[in-house]
């Protein structure tokens, strides 16, 4: 590294770069990043990567086994399901559905939770009590049950399942943001901003919020993992994605009856969920270590 001398003093760097290099040294986090990258790429490039149309049924190719099986063919690498649809293609398109679900539901929860957390952390008093008690009420329900109630009320569809997941995730973000904002509010740079005459909106979103991002990023990453899992669960129960949408949870649900006859139909979507969740969890843990100075060696 000695000959690669950078023109800048290491002290000049933004703390962000230290955190990135910290993350890079964490091998499990890098593994998580690799898995996530694979999923994101397959989601984006789905039409180019998938060998077949995920919705195309082929009556003569029903329940073909994967290629390494004695009767498997290269035409359907991971085999076909009971309607003859190519499982690999459905998995690739399923990545798209899962990532969209994760981004939208966690994004919604992030926005609402951050806003509520900022308001209750900054203004305290009456508003804090009302907001945080509402969050406690949401947390008091088992979240999958709450999501089922919401979907049952709105009607089963992918969109409503995303709203349901978002609602159950709002309290996590609200609590984290509130805690950080409460802590930051005590610091003098907030008083200094007030002494300049900055308005509350500016103080909250420009001065305080960037200092609370560490735990928020971690929670968002871990939230992606649980959103994918919850969506699969809701779809498995028939409350999320409706057929013929290629959604991993729905794929597992549909092939339940075939598990003894054609185990691959159920195994591969299960593995896809496993790896997606694993990837986000590994990255989330790595980010937590990198962003929390107390955990550094």
């Amino acid at each position, binding site marked *: 590294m000695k000959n690669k001398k950078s023109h800048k003093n290491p002290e000049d760097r*933004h703390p962000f770069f230290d955190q990135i290099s910290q993350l890079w040294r964490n091998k499990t986090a890098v593994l998580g990043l690799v898995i996530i990258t694979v999923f994101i790429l397959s989601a984006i490039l789905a039409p180019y990567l998938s060998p077949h149309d995920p919705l195309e049924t082929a009556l003569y190719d029903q329940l073909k086994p994967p290629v390494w099986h004695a009767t498997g063919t290269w035409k359907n690498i991971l085999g076909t399901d009971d309607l003859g649809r190519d499982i690999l293609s459905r998995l690739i398109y399923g990545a798209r559905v899962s990532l969209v679900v994760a981004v939208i539901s966690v994004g919604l929860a992030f926005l609402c939770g951050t806003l509520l957390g900022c308001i209750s952390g900054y203004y305290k008093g009456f508003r804090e009590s009302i907001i945080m008690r509402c969050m406690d009420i949401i947390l008091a329900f088992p979240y999958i049950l709450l999501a089922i109630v919401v979907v049952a009320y709105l009607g089963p569809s992918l969109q409503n399942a995303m709203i349901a997941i978002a609602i159950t995730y709002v309290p996590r973000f609200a609590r984290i943001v509130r805690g950080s904002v409460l802590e930051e509010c005590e610091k003098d*740079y907030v*008083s*200094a901003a007030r*002494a*300049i005459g900055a*308005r509350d909106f500016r103080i909250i979103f420009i001065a305080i919020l960037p200092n609370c991002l560490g735990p928020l990023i971690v929670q968002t990453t871990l939230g992606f993992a649980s959103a994918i899992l919850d969506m699969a669960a809701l779809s498995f129960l028939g409350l999320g994605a409706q057929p013929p949408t290629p959604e991993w949870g729905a794929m597992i649900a549909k092939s339940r009856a075939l598990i003894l006859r054609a185990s691959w139909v159920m195994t591969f979507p299960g593995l896809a969920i496993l790896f997606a969740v694993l990837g986000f969890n590994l990255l989330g843990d790595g980010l937590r270590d990198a962003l929390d100075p107390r955990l550094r060696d």
Partner: protein
Amino acid sequence: MEQNNSLLTVKDLVKHFDISGGLLDQLALESGRIVRKKTTVKAVNDVSFTIMPQETLGVVGESGCGKSTLARAVLGLYPPNSGEIHYQDQRIDNLNPKQMLPFRKKMQMIFQDPYASLNPRMTVKKILEEPVYFHNKAINAQAAEDKVAEVMRQVGVDPAWSGRYPHEFSGGQRQRISIARALMVDPEFIVADEPVSALDVSIQAQILNLLMEAREKRGLTYMFITHDLSVVKHISTRVAVMYLGTICELAPTQTLYAQPGHPYTRALLSAIPELGVQKPKHLKLKGEVPTPINLPSGCVFHGRCIYANDRCTQEIPRLMRLESGAYVACHGVEEKRI
């Protein structure tokens, strides 16, 4: 005490903090009935003083006596419970944030901890530019940059470092940046809340000199909060001594150090260590500072004062002018017992 040409007048300022928590925590059972009880910290009680243009009022007192609360209340960072604050001839304690804006440009604050008072996510340039843009929306980028460089040079920080983040500076440099931020809007009045107590002694002198230099050049008025008696002697023209949320003595610096009036001031001054003195004559106070949640009746100092009598336990003393020009809030001094 009433003078019309004063810069800042504070009248009977009271600031209490509610620490009783939520509604459920406030409920208490009293003789068979549920009553709502509030617990308040009485941080500042009936404090009155004036600050004349271009003077430096030092405020001294031990930890928890309400110095910082007073400073923040003066700047409108804490809304006072009662009392009035006048800046020149305008009352400012009841203004809304928008009406307060022109005064924000005239009054600035320097904070104690230079590690917490600069936003860690902003570069020095951004920290310093913010107040300029805020009070001068029409200013162009070049003018703002020039202004940042000029003020940075004045406080002795190389403008070439303006792209750096606060954590890359030492404590003394950060405090210089903190001072620069206060100077960016060309204020008239600066409240300095223990600006040197977080720094080591050699840096303290530099920062004090910087503050005094800025006072000469810009004609600034300071309210200088500290617990360090030698610092206050060095920089102040007048000194207010605070004890448990009240001012017990307010006097020109020379007078205060030469002939302290209030028993608390005497005890405080006798505690300054002196070189070459073998057996220091400390006036030892008995007991501890009472909690500001339950203030003692009468004079807040009566429990620890060797001169206290019955009157002191019942009647709250007001600041009285002495012949020396000092104001002392003490029944004993008023009755010429002390």
